[in-house]
């Protein structure tokens, strides 16, 4: 066993411990931010160095170290870094617990990174809980009623989802006698078709697994918690939840449904159709409800549900012909990377606005271009990317994922998805309109700290760069898609 393969997670975990220890002695809490960022960079460095060594595995195949897992680790680490940067000023609102806040962020990232690499049911469950419990606390970190409500809702519904997932896993284990994903696949293929159909426990287990992860990826009909939690949680955490947690959720779903339930054909076609139908419902519900929102955090919550719907289009596309599945997985990976940059960028801008103005109402963004031109431009780039207009990463990601779906014969799904993008254009552009065309409430400029400006510039520049020269990242995404086959 080669522990070097675990260095990205280990270094983050050690950083988390160090942050707590240094918090006890440090007078200036700024050093904690610096320390956490350093940990992220070190962890990212290890992940880069592992790219050449992949594929490999740890702990008797429990954790995969392949391009797929590493790609998602990059996404999670980038999201983590931007979230830490956007928390620099926001943490003053907490008034306490800087060390705990950062340490919890780091441990949640460790959980998510393990989740994207896990290849065994128990490991998946433990990683899920590690990230989940950290995130429950983070969601209620503001000591106001809304944040506490968010935390409580999140933990209650999260616990139910975990129970459902666990029940599904138990059923699968009971019928196949294995927790290792590959062994599950082997024993499913060995079963005669008739015994599977006579005894629906396996299909029920599968459905419960979908339900359990549906919570994590905010798929319809398990999306109810999203708006309340997103609205109440501290804004940097909202951004982090919408991106990193979702990315890892999709990573593990892709892996389970490929490794364990990818064969036989009829089975993968079954869950492919299931995800296709869920994708339609998820994006339509997300987009239509988003139109009515007046609070930008709630709007972004519904928008993130809708975006999950687009990603599920890609998920459905991984199901049909196994020859094209790597392409579709690459598309999902690329979409998640571009979505991560875009959404975190948008939330950084929202944090910056609310730090000064103390409001999240869309109407209060009126005339922002005169008060904070840089923030407005950054947020505009991110929103345009969420619509999927050129020259941004969002457009390329959509083209790529829809292309994969069309090739798998999901033309009907793509047509529904593109109609959804039209609906989405309306509410995203409405914010753009308010910011650029509205009359400002006051002439007072909205200042932002250097950390926020750096985070927003990085995100917006990344969004534009991936929109203009996408092949840089697409190569990596394709490698990630191919590594799991």
């Amino acid at each position: 066993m080669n522990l070097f393969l675990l260095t990205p997670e280990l270094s983050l975990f050690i950083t988390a411990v160090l942050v707590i220890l240094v918090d006890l002695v440090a007078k200036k809490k700024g050093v904690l931010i610096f320390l956490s960022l350093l940990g992220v960079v070190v962890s990212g460095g290890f992940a880069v160095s592992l790219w050449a060594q992949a594929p490999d595995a740890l702990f008797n195949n429990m954790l995969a170290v392949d391009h797929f897992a590493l790609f998602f680790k990059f996404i999670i680490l980038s999201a983590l870094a931007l979230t830490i940067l956007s928390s620099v000023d926001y943490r003053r609102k907490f008034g306490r617990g800087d060390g705990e806040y950062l340490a919890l962020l780091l441990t949640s990232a460790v959980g998510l990174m393990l989740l994207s690499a896990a290849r065994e049911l128990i490991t998946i469950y433990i990683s899920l809980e590690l990230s989940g419990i950290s995130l429950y606390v983070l969601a209620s970190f503001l000591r106001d009623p809304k944040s506490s409500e968010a935390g409580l809702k999140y933990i209650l519904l999260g616990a139910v989802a975990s129970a459902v997932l666990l029940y599904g896993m138990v059923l699968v284990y009971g019928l196949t006698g294995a927790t290792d994903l590959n062994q599950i696949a082997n024993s499913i293929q060995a079963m005669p078709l008739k015994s599977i159909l006579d005894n629906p426990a396996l299909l029920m287990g599968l459905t419960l697994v979908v339900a359990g992860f549906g919570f994590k990826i905010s798929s319809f009909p398990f999306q109810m918690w999203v708006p309340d939690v997103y609205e109440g949680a501290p804004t940097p955490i909202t951004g982090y939840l919408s991106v990193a947690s979702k990315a890892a959720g999709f990573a593990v779903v892709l892996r389970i449904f490929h490794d364990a339930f990818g064969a036989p054909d009829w089975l993968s076609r079954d869950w492919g159709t299931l995800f296709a139908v869920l994708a339609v419902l998820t994006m339509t519900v997300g987009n239509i409800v988003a139109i009515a929102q007046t609070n930008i955090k709630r709007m972004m919550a519904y928008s993130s549900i809708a975006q999950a719907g687009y990603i599920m289009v890609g998920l459905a596309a991984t199901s049909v012909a196994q020859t094209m599945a790597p392409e579709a997985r690459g598309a999902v990976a690329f979409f998640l990377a571009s979505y991560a940059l875009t959404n975190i960028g948008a939330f950084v801008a929202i944090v910056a606005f609310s730090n000064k103005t103390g409001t999240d109402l869309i109407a209060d963004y009126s005339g922002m271009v005169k008060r904070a031109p840089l923030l407005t431009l950054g947020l505009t780039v991110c929103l345009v990317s969420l619509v999927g207009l050129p020259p941004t990463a969002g457009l390329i990601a959509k083209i790529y994922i829809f292309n994969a779906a069309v090739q798998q014969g999901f033309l009907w799904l793509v047509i529904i998805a593109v109609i959804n993008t039209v609906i989405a254009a309306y509410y995203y552009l409405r914010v753009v309109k308010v910011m650029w065309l509205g009359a400002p409430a006051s002439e007072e400029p909205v200042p932002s700290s250097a950390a926020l400006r750096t985070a927003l510039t990085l995100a917006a520049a990344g969004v534009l760069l991936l929109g203009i020269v996408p092949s840089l990242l697409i190569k990596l995404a394709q490698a990630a898609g191919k590594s799991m086959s």
Partner: protein
Amino acid sequence: MSFPFLSAIIFLPAIGAIVIALLRKPSQQQVRGLALLFSLVSFLLSVYLFLAFDRSNTAIGVMQFVEKLSWLPAVGSSYHLGIDGISLIMLLLTTIIGVLVVLVSWKVTLRPREYFIWLLVLETSLIGVFTSVDLILFFIFWEVELLPMYLLISIWGTGRKEYSAIKYVIYTVSGSALMLAGILTLYFTVGTMDMSVIAQTDLTQLKAAIPLTGIFLLLLAPFFIKLPVFPLHTWLPDAHTDAPTGVSVVLAGVLLKMGGYGMIRVNVGFFPTVARDLAPIMGALAVIGVLYGAAITLRQTDLKKLIAYSSVSHMGLVLLGIFALTNVSLTGATLQMFSHGVVTGLLFALVGLVYDKTHNRNLSALGGLARRMPIIAVVFSIAGLASLGLPGTSGFAAEFLVFVGSFTSNAFASVRIVTLLCAFGIVLTAGYILWMLQRAFHGPPLEQYDKMPDADRVEMLCIFSFAAIIIVVGVYPALLTDIIQMGTKPITALLGAP
């Protein structure tokens, strides 16, 4: 690799936009001067391409000035530019209008910096649409146009500007969403995004995921909306009426032509047999567009609305020309797009001038302006007569080619009746144009307009250039038609025409 002319023409306006954006507190003069400079250089380069274009027989159907770089291999897309006869004419139209629209907008005082930035970005996207050979690139340039248009109408417009702007966006995005689905299905069927390769592939021999007619319709939707074809035209009068003058000029001059261009290049060029099967329906829609558009126009009393509705009627002729599917009619349709671009662009510019001076666009409140502003009146008359197709103007050459080409077509059985009905539209056109000229410029002069100045130097330069193009093309249409034919011949050859 030789000098990348097409990239230079496409991105010069965008670079101009960036330069303007980076200036520290520029004056209005600096901004418009830079905008003029960059669009002018782009125009001069496209004139050079016009002169250097290979007109020999061996170049028929061959893309020229090709640039190709690998860009997005994951979906088979590359940065692939090139022009044939049809694109060259559209390119030329875009860069001409690009320069003139800066002159039309010379006196914009509301946030001039942003105005010219968005105008230049818009020009980049339009040129990109006409020069892309790769379908995804085409789609991306098509989408770039959306945001500048939205902002230009909703910030600098008048009246119900925000309503019109969002209506425009929703119509366009719906169309382009279907286009994306169509492009991806087509790519899956053919395995390439290269438009020149797809045009030479016989799609009927390939196994498509859905019937070819389905792909055809998905790809037709955006162009129908853009052209616009009845009943999808309702965004046009709103957008035109509420847009600022300069933007109306671009909208009428170039944006509508994206629809016609797309139909020729994609629908007829890729699916000639499907196009022939559906031609009777298209013919019927063309008749409705021409007659209904003209009938509605007759009822308008607002000058700007009148010209906006006349576009619906004129674009009906383009639709007829395209789906009559003969070499002559396609050439006529393309020439009609060019001519309409210049003529209607000029008409909107003139309406803008009249409105600036009188603060009135309502025909019932205008009259006798010819005595106060003779230059504007004369140019207005030239443009009006070109619009109704007077011989000696570009309008005549274009409409004549469309009618001759369609009348001799055998694309579908009733094509002659359809052509005759469309030709009747000319009578209605004459009706509203002459009525409008008479109401606005003739009759007894009104007192309140006694002190009205005529066009100043910049305005004269601008409107005389438009008028010169109208007359030059009207007197010697072969200047353009020779080149257009190089693009249309390979398309009609697919249908077995000589």
